[in-house]
């Protein structure tokens, strides 16, 4: 495991922000760390970077205890927390050069990073004149500068347009695919993470609600039958009387959990034979977004 925390708990005053969190982030994964705003994501990330001191529980990164191996661990982590930390009075390149000076990285690497995030043309422009997307890309270049084994990104696509989001997604997939990096990325949008994450952890009110591979998350996601009929409410009641579970009814549609094709045919026939007009009937995968909401709202 690249990151492994055990019963991590953190309290601000009398408010527990992170509750016995046990994260398991495997090597080479893109770990989507999801949760609504204020769920404790940034606090967790600050704990992982030793910006906040661990109060209870433990953090191991690269199988080393964080507190006692701080420098060794941090030298292999690149991070971007909330808005990218950029000196606006310096140019994009100077921002990278300053970091390169601190980390003793050759200047050549700075140019490579500028090319990687498509900022070579704006390299000599003051970072204060950058658009939000450019700042975010510069922030990612800063995080990648030391060629870290682990990237910790806190909402890196905040404020980016769809193109920018796609670009970052592709970059991160390339990093894990070709360069065997591990990416820990937080977000409050499942849809954004779903397309790239291999693993997911969902946190709400500081508690881990779900952790596993994206396949395991999808497995939780049961398909249902969507039926469009003339009298949905009556049809739903009729199905219930005949021992079919109805999960949702509205004016136009009713939903029944999917079990098999044969079962779907049965329902269709039953409704038809009893005078209900069916306009359409089909199998539908529940939106992961709904599942995410369901997981976080059950808390």
């Amino acid at each position, binding site marked *: 495991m690249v990151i492994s925390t055990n019963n991590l708990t953190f309290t601000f005053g009398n408010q527990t922000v992170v509750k016995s969190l046990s994260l398991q982030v495997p090597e080479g994964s893109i770990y989507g760390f999801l949760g609504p705003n204020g769920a404790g994501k940034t606090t967790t990330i600050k704990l992982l970077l030793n910006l906040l001191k661990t109060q209870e529980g433990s953090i191991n990164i690269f199988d080393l205890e964080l507190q006692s191996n701080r420098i060794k661990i941090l030298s292999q982590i690149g991070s971007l927390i909330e808005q990218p930390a950029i000196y606006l009075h310096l140019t994009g390149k100077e921002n990278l050069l300053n970091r390169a000076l*601190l980390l003793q990285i050759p200047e050549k690497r700075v140019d490579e990073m500028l090319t990687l995030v498509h900022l070579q043309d704006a390299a000599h422009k003051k970072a204060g004149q950058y658009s939000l997307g450019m700042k975010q890309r510069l922030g990612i270049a800063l995080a990648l500068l030391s060629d870290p084994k682990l990237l910790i990104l806190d909402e890196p696509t905040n404020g980016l347009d769809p193109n920018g989001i796609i670009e970052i997604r592709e970059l991160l997939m390339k990093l894990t695919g070709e360069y065997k990096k591990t990416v820990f990325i937080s977000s409050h949008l499942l849809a954004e993470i779903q397309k790239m994450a291999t693993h997911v952890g969902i946190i709400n009110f500081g508690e881990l609600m779900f952790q596993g591979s994206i396949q395991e998350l999808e497995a939780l996601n049961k398909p249902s039958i969507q039926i469009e009929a003339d009298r949905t409410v009556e049809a739903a009641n009729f199905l219930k009387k005949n021992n079919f579970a109805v999960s949702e009814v509205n004016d136009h549609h009713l939903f029944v959990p999917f079990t098999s094709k044969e079962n779907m045919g049965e329902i269709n026939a039953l409704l038809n034979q009893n005078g209900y007009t069916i306009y359409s009937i089909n199998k539908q995968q529940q939106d992961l977004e709904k599942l995410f909401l369901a997981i976080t709202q059950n808390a």
Partner: protein
Amino acid sequence: MKGFILSFRSEFYKTRKTMGFWSAVLLPLLLCLMLFIGFFVKADRMINTPAMILWFQLAGAILGIMGLLLLPMLIIFIAYSVNNVEHKADTWKTLFSLPIPKLSVYAAKYFYAFFLIFFCLALFVVFTLGFGNLLGLVKPQLKFGEYNVAGILTQLYLKFFLASLGILSIQFLLSLLFSDFLKPMGIGFVCTITGSILASNNWEYAYLFPYSHPMMAMRALSQGQPKGGDHPSPINPNLTIDLFTKDTGISLIIAVVVFIAGYFIVMKKSVK
């Protein structure tokens, strides 16, 4: 140590294009340049002034306000600007998540602020000497060349530097904790006024209050400097400055204590 040197170099790299850094260069340059012009224009009136008095008039014009206002204000501004670079860019979290000991990062910033004050005061010495000698060249009737002020001037500014350590450390900590300008500026201003009043009234415990120290350092100068305005009485030519006095000791102690306390406050405070 390597982390400290790297951080210190980075401090320079970051601030070399900011007002904080340039104020340390431009302030002595402009003030000395203005004096140069003033002396150049009024040169004829000073033909009979002895070399030593000429030097003291040139240097004294700045030294006179240095302890009262210039030095405290410069300290407040530099302490603010060194920290404001990080507040403005929201980079504290980045600085403290670098693979560099937190103490090195903190100490580099602290000593960089000290370095800027030292650099600025050193430039005052350099420009005063430079413009004085230049005056002697372009207006040979002003006999700047007949007296060497370098030794005493260096000692005086060194005294000012030592006197500034206590205030600088306090202002540094205030600017580190508060991201706005008004709080450290306001506190610093009130304390400077208080310090000046205490020192100028010769309150016996003024040496315990760091904001009195620049004023007291200025006193070291006026002990040697003639009183009586435009017609100075003869000065003791073997003028020496007592570099290490009670107030200097207090200034140093405060700097060390605040440095250590500041480190623990910064570590304790969660990085926003």
